């Protein structure tokens, strides 16, 4: 196991480096640069800007310089937001996105799992159809419509929640529900589906036959098995929700990290593109690593080290 962990950590670092390298060269292939404007800047001013940010160096040198700084944890200055570094952009934005992310993930789990179990227990009953209906609605209404609907209904018409903004507890509710919409639906569907299968297994029948109460059957025997898909879902979910969603942060005017994943590319703000991409992919490989570890813990038969005899 130790060998496996060591191998994985090394390959994770490699993954992040490859992502950084690929993104570095791909983004430089994008048409236009950070100083392209509808009102074109005079050539001399562009040259001054490129000199200031060392964009007039050969590409390989820029790459080596960037990687050198990256190793030291320095993500460089933002080209768009003069006077700001990419480190400070992440430092400011990540806590906000992560706060919202924690709430959204908790909502997804706390609502998705019970809904799925409920649906499975009443398979094909009205409760099941109700769960299915909610789940499908959550998936077929995209978050940009969901966000606007929630805002209009609860913010503008019912006046029960602030329309948008960040800073108070009540301002978390609407964006968190918008973010959780898809995961709730997805988790509920998966839990229902695997619960139905688990409930048909012999060991459950055996447990029931022994006269163990239904609640205990669910909690002690079935739950552990349906936790595996939930954990698989949660890994990338946490990575992507914690680093923020562009749509949700834009619509609810939340000062998080999510908007930079899109605006930095539109602005061709090279250092910011790389910084947020590296940050996200590092979090993602780490979460996927945790997922694999959790697999092994939940289902001891899963092995990652190659067996000698096969």
């Amino acid at each position, binding site marked *: 196991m130790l060998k496996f962990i060591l191998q994985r950590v090394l390959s994770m670092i490699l993954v*992040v480096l490859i*992502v950084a390298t690929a993104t570095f060269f791909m983004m430089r292939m994008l048409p236009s640069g950070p100083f392209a404007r509808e009102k074109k800047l005079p050539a001399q001013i562009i040259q001054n800007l490129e000199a200031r940010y060392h964009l007039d160096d050969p590409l390989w040198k820029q790459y080596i310089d960037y990687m050198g700084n990256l190793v030291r944890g320095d993500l460089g200055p933002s080209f768009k937001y003069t006077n700001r570094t990419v480190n400070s952009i992440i430092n400011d934005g990540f806590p906000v996105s992560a706060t919202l992310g924690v709430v959204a993930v908790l909502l997804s789990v706390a609502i998705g799992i019970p809904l799925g179990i409920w649906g499975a227990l009443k398979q094909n009953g009205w409760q099941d159809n109700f769960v299915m209906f909610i789940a499908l609605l959550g*998936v077929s209404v995209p978050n940009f419509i969901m966000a*606007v609907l929630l805002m209009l209904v609860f913010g503008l018409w019912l006046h029960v929640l602030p329309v948008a903004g960040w800073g108070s507890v009540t301002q978390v509710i609407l964006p968190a529900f918008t973010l959780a919409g898809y*995961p709730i639906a997805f988790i509920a569907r998966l839990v229902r*589906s695997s619960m139905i299968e688990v409930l048909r297994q012999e060991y459950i029948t055996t447990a029931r036959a022994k006269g163990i109460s239904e609640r205990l059957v669910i909690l002690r025997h079935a739950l*552990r*098995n349906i936790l595996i898909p939930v954990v*698989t879902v949660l890994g990338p979910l946490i990575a992507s929700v914690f680093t923020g969603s562009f749509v949700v942060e834009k619509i609810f005017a939340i000062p998080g990290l999510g908007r930079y994943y899109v605006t930095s590319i539109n602005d061709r703000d090279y250092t910011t593109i790389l910084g947020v991409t590296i940050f996200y992919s590092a979090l993602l490989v780490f979460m996927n690593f945790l997922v694999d570890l959790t697999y092994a813990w939940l289902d001891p038969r899963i092995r990652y080290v190659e067996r000698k005899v096969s």
Partner: protein
Amino acid sequence: MTTKAGWEFKEGTLPDAGAFAPASKNSGDLQQIAGRPTTYWSDAIRRVRRNKLAVIGFWVIVALFVIAIVGPMLSPYTYAEQDLTNTYQSPTLRHPFGTDQLGRDQMTRVLYGSRISLAVGVVCAALNFAIGVTYGGIAAYFGGRVDNIMMRIVDILYGIPTLIIVILLTVLFKDRGVNPLVNVFIAIGLTYWLPMARIVRGEILSLKEREFALAAKTIGAPNNRILFKHLIPNAMGPIIVTVTLEVPSAIFTEAFLSYIGLGVSAPVASWGVLASDGTEAIRSFPYLVVFPALAISLTMFAFNFLGDGLRDALDPRLRQ
């Protein structure tokens, strides 16, 4: 439009740990279980037909396709015909879905849009299915180093910003004269099979250690047979849940792609484009978003009902 959470979070897997595969009636003859494809499929179809919701789903899908083909021809308007003196008309008998910001008949636009959105939904779901299931299955089945390398490649593709890839594709496809829908298929096929691969891989990791798989191996069944005839059919549950949930994601992804410049160009509009354009006018003219959104939901429900029926029918453990 880019819903990072929406696309990237399509993860899920159902390794049925602890569940012994019901080694059907005659467990000495495991090799034969998947060995009769014709019976397997005809059996499956028979079982789907017994599922009322699945049948409804099937006929709704058929109806949607017929409407997509015939509908625009029957309409007295065309999807592009404008009437700048009749913009933003509420639904009436003449315009059952109202008119849009250029006075175009919204119903005709929704009907025409179904051609693009249905094509995108079906083809992309199929692409995700083919690429993702094969890739994830191979990674998990061979395990160890193969798994580590293949899944790290998935991590890398996950990490590179999709927006950059998509913009580069628009540059690459420029002036190539390729059918714009093909560009959409390529863009989605390149980047959106990743969640499916992870799901299948998680599932197979658990399944391949079960007795029935080990038994098949022991009696010398070839690898591809074990993977495709024994393991993947057992993972059909989560695969079908994922595929059906990817239909609406693909429809909305197409809308995002068309904003960047990949896909059909205006004035043709898919459901996704109509819905997101309509959202901008949602306060005063909600009908502009309601009808395309309803169309997407209806498609979604139909595919899911059929999907659930198929799942029950294809799951070897549920066969009697």
